[in-house]
């Protein structure tokens, strides 16, 4: 325990952490302009590593305080801290014990008397004793003790603001009645008119499959029209000066990402944006000790500011991002995943585009693609999918002025509008797609930008199934949420938006669910037509297959079979073709023949869709974690 012993910046930072005098001057200057403590700047703006700082403290023989987070309680003057939480976070000071005549704090920089004075001023009494802890520990203590109000808003913000838009309730009562009613009616009709109902259902499934895939094909075709267009040309980008650039917040939600944290720092350093105007928040779950310890032990300087999210269910990315919003100060805000490698001029491009387009545009979605596309078959197919999705389909939606379901990362927001929209729905596992629709429903617009963020393609089958089941479950959630009041939705987004929503969101998971049913049915009939079964199973000329076919024909007449085969073949052809087109924008011609394997890839989607459907009913908010850092590939620019 230390009783207000004097420490000096020179001994701690210059002699202990080996910072140069010029660096110290720069940090002081930056600290003044950003109104942050010296240590915050030193640790979060790339001057000093956390390991170096710990060593400096150890060198001065300063014992480090270990928090027992479960036992932390709020002090009597808790309201002051809650109201001024930002100041305490910036100062890295946690008041641990306070009475009317006694104040004991845990702080990170014992040499920063200005900081201590400002906290004394806020609390209205002198610090009697202090102990020293690492900055991350102090931050965590502050967040888990005093961040609960923000946490509550992060989880229930959407629910409190607009209950009908929240996915906390998967099926509403009216939806259950409607789905149950349709099922009972179908069964009843099937009992009385079995053939008509079977044929009708088959036609309906075929029609939905055809229109959903046809819509995607047309979107891709429409999007390819703008293939060579640039939204911001070179001269427009060159005209942007550093002085005019606003503060830009980057949220980096991470969960058990210790493997990729060092890559993340490197990728962020490559961004062409003045560091002092970047407000980068690394969002760490308080129970994620793996990432927490990895950051604590980093032996090279970071350029992000950790935010520790107090534990609460659901443990989802949107909840983390919502929590991060309360500590963000950029005019614009974006989200990157830990392994993301954005184009280095992406933030400037977004700023230039926001300047160019009307105020009603509140989100800009950048393209996503993969840096490890050639790692294995799965990454190749995944790259093809992302290429047509972000390079062709989303620009197609953009040009048709139809709601764009946002991608998981690299969506750039006007911060004030994002707050107005209430942030993300913490209970929706594809919160980004949901947010895009909510923005559209409020007459705001979303557009796309031809700048790319490279991610790590999932290279493991089971990891891919987990990730995809979450995405498809999220699409189901989003569909159910927005279809609670279909007429209201129609009035809000108009016919074009409504149809786009049905085919793009509803059609996506529906086609994956229907695909294996139609496929197995068709294969059975075609297999029976070949009469191979007679020889393979019965070893003679029995007409078993013909007898079976005659039975099936009652429910599946020839004309319906022709329609089904045609529809199915055309559907697959269109999706294969869309995948083939996808290689052109990025000139990844070596992938073109892999597009022929798209039907297999669709079957993988179907497996995920059924997994997602089961989860939607059993554990709707469960966040299937995608493991990152499995790749052995690296993008050239990241090494």
């Amino acid at each position: 325990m230390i009783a207000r012993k004097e420490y000096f910046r020179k001994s701690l930072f210059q002699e202990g952490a080996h910072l140069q005098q010029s660096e110290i001057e720069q940090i002081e200057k930056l600290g003044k302009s950003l109104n942050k403590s010296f240590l915050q700047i030193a640790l979060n703006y790339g001057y000093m590593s956390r390991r170096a700082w710990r060593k400096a403290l150890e060198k001065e023989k300063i014992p480090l305080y270990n928090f027992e987070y479960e036992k932390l309680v709020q002090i009597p003057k808790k309201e002051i801290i809650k109201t001024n939480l930002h100041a305490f976070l910036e100062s890295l000071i946690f008041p641990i014990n306070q009475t009317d005549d006694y104040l004991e704090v845990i702080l990170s920089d014992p040499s920063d008397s200005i900081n201590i004075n400002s906290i004394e001023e806020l609390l209205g009494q002198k610090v009697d004793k202090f102990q020293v802890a690492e900055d991350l520990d102090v931050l965590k203590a502050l967040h888990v003790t005093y961040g609960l109000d923000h946490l509550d808003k992060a989880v229930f913000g959407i629910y409190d603001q607009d209950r009908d838009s929240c996915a906390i309730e998967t099926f509403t009562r009216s939806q259950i009645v409607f789905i149950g009613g349709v099922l009972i009616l179908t069964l009843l009709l099937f009992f009385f008119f079995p053939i008509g109902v079977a044929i009708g259902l088959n036609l309906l499934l075929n029609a939905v499959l055809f229109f959903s895939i046809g819509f995607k094909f047309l979107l891709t075709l429409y999007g390819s029209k703008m293939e060579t267009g640039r939204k911001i040309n070179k001269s427009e980008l060159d005209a942007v000066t550093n002085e005019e650039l606003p503060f830009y917040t980057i949220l980096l939600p991470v969960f058990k990402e210790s493997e990729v944290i060092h890559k993340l720092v490197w990728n962020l350093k490559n961004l062409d944006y003045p560091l002092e105007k970047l407000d980068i928040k690394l969002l760490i779950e308080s129970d994620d000790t793996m990432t927490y310890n990895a950051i604590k032990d980093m032996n090279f300087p970071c350029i992000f500011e950790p935010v520790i999210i107090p534990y609460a269910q659901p443990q989802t990315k949107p909840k983390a991002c919502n929590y991060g919003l309360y500590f963000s100060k950029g005019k614009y805000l974006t989200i990157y995943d830990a392994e993301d490698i954005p184009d280095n001029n992406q933030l400037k491009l977004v700023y230039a585009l926001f300047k160019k387009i009307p105020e009603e545009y509140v989100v800009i979605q950048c393209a996503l693609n993969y840096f490890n596309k050639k790692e294995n078959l799965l990454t190749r197919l995944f790259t093809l999918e992302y290429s047509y999705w972000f390079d062709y389909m989303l620009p197609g939606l953009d040009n048709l002025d139809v709601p764009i379901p946002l991608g998981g990362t690299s969506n750039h927001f006007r911060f004030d509008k994002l707050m107005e929209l209430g942030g993300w729905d913490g209970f929706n596992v594809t919160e980004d797609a949901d947010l895009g629709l909510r923005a559209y429903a409020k007459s705001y617009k979303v557009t796309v930008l031809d700048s790319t963020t490279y991610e790590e393609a999932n290279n493991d089958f089971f990891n891919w199934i987990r990730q995809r089941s979450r995405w498809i479950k999220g699409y189901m959630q989003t569909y159910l949420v927005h279809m609670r009041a279909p007429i209201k939705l129609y009035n809000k987004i108009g016919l074009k938006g409504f149809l786009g929503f049905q085919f793009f969101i509803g059609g996506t998971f529906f086609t994956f669910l229907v695909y294996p049913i139609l496929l197995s049915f068709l294969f059975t009939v075609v297999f029976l037509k070949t009469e191979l079964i007679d020889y393979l199973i019965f070893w003679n000329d029995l007409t078993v297959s013909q007898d079976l076919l005659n039975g099936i024909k009652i429910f599946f007449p020839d004309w319906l079979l022709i329609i089904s085969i045609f529809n199915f073949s055309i559907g697959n052809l269109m999706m294969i073709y869309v995948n083939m087109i996808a290689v052109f924008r990025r000139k990844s011609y070596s992938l073109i023949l892999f597009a022929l394997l798209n039907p297999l890839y669709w079957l993988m989607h179907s497996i995920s869709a059924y997994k997602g459907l089961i989860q939607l009913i059993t554990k709707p908010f469960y966040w299937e974690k995608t493991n990152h850092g499995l790749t052995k590939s690296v993008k050239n620019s990241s090494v």
Partner: protein
Amino acid sequence: MKKDKLSYILGFLLISSAYLLLSYWIQLRGFYNLESYFFEYKTQVITRFDSEFLRTFYFTQPGFLFIISLPFTYLWKIQGIYILNAFLIGGLTNHLFFKSIKGNPIHKSFLVYLFFSPVIVYSATSGGSLAIYLIFYFLYFSLIMKYANSLSVFHLTLLSLLVGMHVLMNGPFVKLILIAIPIFFFSGFYKAKGISGNFFNRASAIFRNASQRRKFFSEFFASVLILTFIPCVGYLIFLIINKVFAGDYHFSERSLGDSWQSYSSLLHLTSETPYIWEVLSGSSIFYLISIILIGSVAVLQLFKYDNSVSTRIAIGIILLFVLSEVLTSKITNLNLTLLSMLTGTGLASLYFSESTKSSLKSSAKFIPFLIPFLAIFFEYNYFENSIVKAERLYFDVSHNAAKNRIAESLNQSIAVFNHNGGGHVLADDAIFYPELSQLSSEFTWNGHFSPQFISALQQPELYADYLIVTKEAHPLHLYDFVATALKRLESFNAKVDYQVLYEDELIQILSIKK
């Protein structure tokens, strides 16, 4: 904006109506087109008999035209294909009209060509398949030229879709892909980044550098794959469906009733002058005159000062393609169905090719303005000397109302049938489809599509009330199944007891006594 759209729609309706009126007027003056009767006949087959749609579709050439003309058949009393053609070419003319008035002075001068080109007017008003071929050619070459300019996958996909439809119209047209491949190859040299200079500089720079070379070829093959994928897989799907439902039968077969000229391609050629034989004889090069006359609008584009090199190469390749196709079979190909490819190319290169800087001296700049007038003049001469019966007839009746013996025979025979009341007719429907298509719903018949056709030929009295047969003067008399069967029965002394209801120099209508 709204005003522009409104005037666009009004223009379309106005031009289409004008074409429709013109086609009506030309028919009043004695023009007829066997192809339009053929499509009407196929519509009758679908609606009146228990015959599957897909089967009829398989055995109708061009099938795609048959499908899209079907709705128009029920729209009005005029044959559906005339309405469809008026709308198709009306749309094309209207679109190019608006492009012309917004374009440069050369485009404006082509307004004359758009409204007075004999090829365009004929395709809009003659009731055959020419209109849809002209539209396809125009779109195809426009897209090729746009692709050569933009090198965008958007144009590539549209091209592939279009070729897919071409294959539905006419399978062998898949050859059109061959035209696109060299253009893709040569335009690929302009896509490489960081390489400038003329064509030879670019080519040598690309081939010398391994990375550029690999990129160039992978891009070229990817483009060709994208282009060929839809037609090839479309055909594959067709084969799969066929295999599942018809085994080895359908896809390799052709029926006698699947084309309006399936018996003899000579039928539609004019035979009144010895000129036709000069054109068709192996050693003669007279056929070149037809190509030059119709190709003038494309050929003259070669001399238009602002056309790019790729456009000139494209025109050259297309000319060679047309020439080789005509040489393959002058009888079937020396007509506007193929030659309109040149009209399509000419229009496409005029409106959609990349422009370069003028290299003509100012004194010679008037030449491009002469092109539309020269083209109209040459096309007029083509019609005057055409060896195709319908084309020549069109030219003749547009000058003087004419009476045609086939048309007269058709009208007379329909009058006879309607006078005598309903019944079952036995006729070779590959010859008598015009007559059969005009019969009222009281009549039914056996044709090539019918499973009882062979039995009916052996015992007509059991299967038919009426017979229609050709006489020796009819150019297709030797192909007529029913006439031959009747003669055979007579030679075996199995005489059919009949009464002649109508007779002219070409046909007989017989009523079987029961």
